[in-house]
């Protein structure tokens, strides 16, 4: 399936490039703590959603256990940083153990359920994810239970760390931005996320990616041509799990806190689903757009809803409907409508423009 790039394709790619540029210069463009928080969250979620897209968009299997892998990575880093103290060795150990656990669990789930029916897979992953969540809150001596774990990351990421000092031993400012550990942390997040995203792009462009697309389009035919569908699906499930786990480690490094709410909760799974559907399944570009839109909406639109609800005070129903608590309700409705009318999401719909039918 070779596609000639259409006008729409170019628009999507240009949009993604602009987003990448904005994220690259985010600390300088938006100089407050909250914006940096948003930018880092966007970076991590782009990777997380893109790795989920490998599953849902490229092989057509729905997993509800993606947050579980995200959590494995985050908890791996958190526990090792807590036990071994802040150091790079702890980070590496944590990341590797997260990846190892994720791989083993992914292989087990994959072999157990992928050979039966795709729909079993959705249910089994849901059950596995819920067990992981319960375990995280019950094994409190390791995971800190509901409270989670706070820990220190390597010294270079401390806000007090000075990357460059001038003659008076003060932090150098570049375009008004202090070159401190926070900036280093952000660029660590940005660089690692970019790397993971590029790895995924490479994977999708490789012959394996083509096979995956073939499986998505016509499973029986791919099998008949001689590709072992189960093996490929399990493989891509493992890859997605590993990348999600690494994303979890990165997020844990950024937040310096890991708890069930930030990594394992079902709300995050729903967020990932929404991002992938809003952005567009089957193109990693869509994941970027979806993640950016939804994270921005989460941070800013919700506040806007609160303001709107207060402004409309006195009018019946309206303020009630616009209350920030109703946020998920509206997202759910938008989600359903999107799946009905724009199953290809934003990226897919735009990319179709200018394509010859």
């Amino acid at each position: 399936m070779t596609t000639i790039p259409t006008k729409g394709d170019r628009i999507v790619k240009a949009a993604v490039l602009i987003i990448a540029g904005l994220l690259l210069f985010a600390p300088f463009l938006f100089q407050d703590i909250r914006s940096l928080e948003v930018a880092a969250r966007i970076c991590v979620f782009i990777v997380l959603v893109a790795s989920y897209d490998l599953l849902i968009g490229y092989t057509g299997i729905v997993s509800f256990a993606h947050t579980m892998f995200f959590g494995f990575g985050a908890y791996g880093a958190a526990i090792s940083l807590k036990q071994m103290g802040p150091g790079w060795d702890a980070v590496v150990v944590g990341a590797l153990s997260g990846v190892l656990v994720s791989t083993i669990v992914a292989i087990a789930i994959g072999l157990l359920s992928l050979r039966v029916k795709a729909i079993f897979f959705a249910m089994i992953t849901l059950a596995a994810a819920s067990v992981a969540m319960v375990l995280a809150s019950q094994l409190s001596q390791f995971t800190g239970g509901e409270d989670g774990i706070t820990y220190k990351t390597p010294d270079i990421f401390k806000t007090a760390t000075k990357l460059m000092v001038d003659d008076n031993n003060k932090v150098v400012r570049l375009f008004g931005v202090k070159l401190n550990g926070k900036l280093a942390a952000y660029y660590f997040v940005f660089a690692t996320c970019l790397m993971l995203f590029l790895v995924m792009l490479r994977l999708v462009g490789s012959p394996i990616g083509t096979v995956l697309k073939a499986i998505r389009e016509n499973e029986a035919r791919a099998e008949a041509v001689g590709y072992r569908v189960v093996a490929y699906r399990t493989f891509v499930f493992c890859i997605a799990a590993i990348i999600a786990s690494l994303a979890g480690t990165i997020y844990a490094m950024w937040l310096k806190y890991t708890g069930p709410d930030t990594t394992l909760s079902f709300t995050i799974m729903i967020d990932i689903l929404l991002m992938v559907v809003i952005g567009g399944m089957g193109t990693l570009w869509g994941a970027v757009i979806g993640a950016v839109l939804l994270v921005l909406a989460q941070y800013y639109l919700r506040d806007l809803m609160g303001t709107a609800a207060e402004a409309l005070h006195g009018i019946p129903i309206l303020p009630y409907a616009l209350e920030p608590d109703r946020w998920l309700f509206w997202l759910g409705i938008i989600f359903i409508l999107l799946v009905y009318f724009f199953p290809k999401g934003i990226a897919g719909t735009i990319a179709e423009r200018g394509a010859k039918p």
Partner: protein
Amino acid sequence: MDQVNKLIERLGGVYLLPVAVSLIALVLIGVPSSWVTLTVAGLAMGMMIFLMASGLSLVFGLMDVLNFGHSAFVSFGAFIAASVLAWLGGWLGSDSIILNSMAILAAFIAAFQFGLAAGWFFETVVIKPVYHDHLRQILITMGALIVAEQMILAIWGGAPMSVPRPSFLEGAFLIGDVAIEIYRVYALILGGLVYIALYLTLNRTRIGLLIRAGVENREMVEALGFRIDRLFVGVFMAGSALAAMGGVMWAGYETLITPALGAEMMIVVFIVVIIGGLGSIEGTLLGAIMVGLVANYVGFLAPKLALASNMILMMVILLWRPNGLKPAVK
């Protein structure tokens, strides 16, 4: 070995599994009185889960539709029942058993009616456009679940809600030194009645015949001139109503319900349906009883393991029979 297999098959095959499990548990527990209590608790729990799961399984078997929003009916049923019971507090608090039963009946009727109506709406509006497309089905029903949960939050609020229980269902009675909660017996009887009703409908009536035929070969039934889509709406409505009833039972059992109830039950329901094999009522009953028994036994024997017991049970059974214990012919 062959002869043993044949003997087991003649005695009931996989239906012996719950018996085997409970016998092993008897040996492990060692105290007959607590074993009886646990077994009754497990059976009652299994019956309630069966109510919730049966609709899901039938709908899948008949139409290849997997409804991730199924648990929304359970939670709505529970909350509607709680509201009705709170509203009829006077009847419930009186000494007359007749008035008490009337209140409970009213709660069941309200939940059942709601289940029918919501099932119809769900089927025609939400699911019909995405038949034969599993990926979008999963996504859309998931979206519907989110919306439904948010509606429950908006209507009843996030605080836990207590469910009043009439006095004649409270407490326990003693047989020898075995204490048995009355509510569990009540759940057991009600679940058993529903199962018998479902079994008779499916196996002794014309509609049941059509449903079973549709599960086995849908196109053939359609080719013979039956409107199977209408039949499906009916099955879907009945399944939703049963789920709502299961919610009522569960609400009375737990006596304190939160909006998270649906999500919690969904996992169990899925596990039951997977264990039992999609599409068959017998399989669902078997799966539900297995889950109920194992959850209670493990909770007694190794409380630490209780959380993962369902998951382990599912893994073991899937390794043994990848399609579930008693899948519908397909």
